[in-house]
């Protein structure tokens, strides 16, 4: 995902420092950025005049697009379908020789992610190393995405 700044998130907060969340709005923006808090944790954002800002924050943070099992968020506007994520996935490298050699998976192949209509899509999130508690933590797809279209939270 494109690198967000605290100020970008702060823009959409009420900026009243009411303290209902227990902190100032700037501090809350910091916690949003670190993903320790969510927009729904600010009671003031639920008010009608801030509804649009809340939607915007949800969109920026990819809240509605996060896969709960893996924590993957994909920004379709940035993805160019280059297939790097499919290549570097250690699950694919270990289980599919063709994919390891650079070819895309076939229609019937069991893969974690695939390029569908020129955008990356999660196919079998349950196979991702991040969904397996005992597996080593993995961020290969997001680390090597050249356009920062993928984020793991």
């Amino acid at each position: 995902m494109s690198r967000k700044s605290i100020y970008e998130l702060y823009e959409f907060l009420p900026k009243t420092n009411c303290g209902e969340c227990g902190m100032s709005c700037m501090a809350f923006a910091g916690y949003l950025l670190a993903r320790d808090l969510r927009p729904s944790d600010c009671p003031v954002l639920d008010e009608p005049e801030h509804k649009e800002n809340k939607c915007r924050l949800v969109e920026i943070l990819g809240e509605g697009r996060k896969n709960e099992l893996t924590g993957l968020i994909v920004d379709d506007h940035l993805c160019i379908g280059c297939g790097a994520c499919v290549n570097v996935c250690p699950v694919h490298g270990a289980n599919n020789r063709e994919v390891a050699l650079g070819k895309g998976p076939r229609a019937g192949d069991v893969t974690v992610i695939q390029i569908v209509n020129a955008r990356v899509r999660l196919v079998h999130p349950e196979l991702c190393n991040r969904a397996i508690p005992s597996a080593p933590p993995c961020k290969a797809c997001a680390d090597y995405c050249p356009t920062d279209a993928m984020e793991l939270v």
Partner: protein
Amino acid sequence: MSIEKFIRASMEDEEQGDTQGSAPAEAFTDFDTEHHSMVCPGCSCLCDDISYYVKEGQVVRTLNLCEVGWKRICTVSEEDRLPPPSPSLLAESLHSAASVLRSHRPVLVLGADSLGESAIRATYELAMELEGPWLPWAFMGLRRFFERAERFGWATALLDHVRDHAESVIFWRADPLETHHRHLSRYSFFARGRFTERGNLDRNLAAVASEKTVIEPLCKQFFQLPVDRDVALIGALAHPQGAEGFDHRDLPALVRAIQGSSYVALFLDPEKVGDETLDALFEWSVKVNNEGRKRMVILPLWAAGSNIEGFCRVSLEKNATPWGKDFRAFSNTVRSADRVWGDLAETVKSVLVIPSGIEPSHRDRLPGCLRDKPRVVIDPFKQAQHRNDDVVIPTALPGLESDGMFFRADGIPFEVRGVEAITQQGYPTVDDVLANIMTEAC
């Protein structure tokens, strides 16, 4: 509804009920038939691992297709496409085209580098009959590159060989993530090879460009330099001990990487580098290869038509040069692009132009000095640059609505069949149009 809107609507319908993220691909079962396979004609990678699904005669889902190929498929039913001509209109257009070209010889036949091989050959035959030059869009870069290849010797390789062996990969003023999206994952960086079993972990990626590019975050070394500093950088890389007058923070790391590699692959866009740079790169390659301890290959990465390699092959066969059929306008002296186009404009009396590329800005790059010539345009799309007195003949899209032999960037031939599901709407193929013009004009 255009195909792009159809597909986006299908995806939105699919995702509406899923707030957990991307919907699994298997959940999509709403298609008419099983999947088909195709070779993508979007660029010279010619990816042969593409699958697509069909609904109501349109492609609704693709697998492994990048954005370049996706845009190519979407152009099939794009709203700014010219309507298919009726038989009578087509006959009239062909007659007009033949009349224009016959009465305004010599004719410049320009831009056949995105057609199938048979159509490229047809354009050559037409150029011979019409006594004019026969050139691809990138003819100046082609000539400069292949003249050096002939002079210095050219070490090249198949892309699969690069995948298996390359330990250092350098993109010199070429960004595959702009023009050939899957190049890195299929061949040059991420793909695992026989001797590079860990893929990108076994490779050092470096790039040289005038400004920050999309590939920059992936590079271990990135040189943001003006073009006139290229020769100094090449000198520093080729002769590290004697390097003076060139300093860059990434230079020592790249020198170490190259020294530690047994195989170096250098991709460049010859249209973006100067003559001195080309000379220096070829000299460096010769020096490295002659030393015998490592191999260094140079491969062009053209931001041109997807069958530029096919054009080169036909040209080599017919002319013994890969950059087209020169006319007397050319000489061996080095001249600016404007002067070359100007000399061409003084020599020819009309133009048969075949735009290549998908983006509107790429579709008509005819220089100003040629725009006042009578012209025949073989172009499926409406363009603002079309004039009322142009003869414009819309055709089937090569590689998507018609078959053709295309050649990958390294010369491997691929028979590209038209996508089965794309309904033929009555567009003539480029081959048929050229054959008819040939019959009438000659």
